[in-house]
């Protein structure tokens, strides 16, 4: 039965290089189609290149294909260095890794997995260091701001605090009006606090993110606790999804998880793919699930 299913499926779940390559190409495609900030030349060239790869599947295995995508995005990032989102930098790095991987004569998959292990260590490690070094983050400042303006967990808070939405909507308006007036430079504004234990909630959320990210970096560097670390990464991606609309970045993190996941763990691999499909489809369809502002 299993072998029959495998024969009829669109891809082999154990073919990491093939699946991850198609996912990354899809991420590029969505970005080029959606992101109007990228120049029309780069967008059209990128879309054409990716379309060619979907029709001529050998292109996915060509280093030149990956280096072309990497170069196109690198041009955009270089031209908009201080305005580009971090996930565009990540796309440059990831596609260059695929280019180098396909340039190898042997052990391509090992090259890919080791490169992604170090990339995960770099970007997740730096994210953890930045947060760990920020007093504002430890004090829960970011979560504080989000909750005061009704940006996150509003469905949870609304269940316990009936006038939560009114308070946060009024806070948002007050803040917008405050920012729109240059006479307010140097002045302060105090918003209405919808929750009594906001400080504690903010600090707890901030602390737990730093701890989970730190643990993930440590676990990814070891060969042990395979199930635990991938379960933790899945939980991390899903919970982050409820806090920030960063679906492209989260799909890249999930793709990294898929690449680093052992082949025998088919359920975990499927979970990553379902998650990536959901994240990419919400991004492609401009769907905002409503958890945010």
């Amino acid at each position, binding site marked *: 039965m299993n072998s029959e299913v495998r024969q009829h499926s669109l891809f082999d779940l154990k073919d990491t290089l093939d699946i991850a390559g198609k996912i990354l190409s899809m991420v590029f495609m969505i970005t080029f189609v959606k992101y109007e900030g990228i120049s029309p030349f780069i967008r059209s060239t990128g879309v054409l290149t990716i379309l060619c790869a979907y029709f001529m599947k050998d292109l996915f295995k060509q280093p030149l294909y990956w280096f072309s995508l990497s170069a196109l995005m690198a041009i955009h*990032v270089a031209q*908009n*260095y*201080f*305005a*580009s*989102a*971090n996930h565009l*930098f990540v796309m440059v*790095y990831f596609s*260059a*890794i695929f280019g*180098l991987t396909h*340039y*190898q*004569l042997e052990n391509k998959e090992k*090259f890919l997995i*080791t*490169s992604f292990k*170090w*990339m995960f*260590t*770099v*970007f997740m490690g*730096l*994210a953890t260091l*930045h*947060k760990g*070094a*920020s007093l*504002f*983050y430890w*004090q*829960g*400042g*970011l979560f*504080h*701001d989000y909750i*005061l303006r009704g940006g996150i967990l509003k469905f949870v808070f609304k269940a316990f605090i009936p006038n939560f939405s009114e308070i946060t909507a009024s806070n948002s308006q007050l*803040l917008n009006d*405050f*920012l*729109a007036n*240059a006479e*307010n*430079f*140097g*002045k*302060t*504004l*105090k*918003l209405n*606090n919808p929750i009594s234990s*906001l*400080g504690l909630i*903010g600090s707890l959320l901030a602390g737990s993110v730093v701890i989970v990210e730190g643990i993930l970096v440590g676990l990814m560097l070891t060969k042990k606790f395979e199930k635990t670390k991938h379960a933790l990464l899945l939980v991390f991606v899903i919970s982050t999804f409820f806090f920030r609309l960063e679906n492209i970045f989260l799909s890249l993190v999930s793709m990294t998880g898929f690449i680093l996941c052992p082949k025998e763990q088919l359920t975990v691999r499927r979970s990553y793919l379902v998650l990536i499909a959901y994240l990419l489809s919400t991004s492609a369809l401009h769907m905002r699930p409503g958890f945010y502002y």
Partner: protein
Amino acid sequence: MKKSFLRSDKAILIIPSLALFIALIQWGIFLTTDLTEWKGGGFGMYTTLHPNTARTIWLEYDFNGFRVLQRPDELQKRIVEEKSFGERSSDVAAWFKNEMQKMRYFPYRSRLESFAKDFKAIANQSGQKISNICIKVGELKLNPKTDEYKYEIIKNECELVK
């Protein structure tokens, strides 16, 4: 036969090292300048309020005997409504708005000067006399202990065009 460097095991470290290098440069720049932690490839997101909601940029200039102070949206609206730049007003207005919004992520002097020079040159071409251009960048800082937001000026540059 000896393998080329790109086909050796050491090649695994090329891209992670490049990412680390760029991130460390970004760390150095934001510590010493007004670059926001959210931009520049350094993964410092979430450690400050997002600049799209917390940073504002203002263009101030003399026009027809008045001192004008505008945010990107207001500048765009005025250019489109008054057709200040003829048939291409909406394109020019969108460009100015986009450039101003991007500048607030990293408002350094030479970039502000370059923008002011373009703004004055385009205005002059359409017959508008604009002078004494200044650019201000404001940032909202939250004190989580008191729930208070403070609106600070992080950049106020004048005499941008000689």
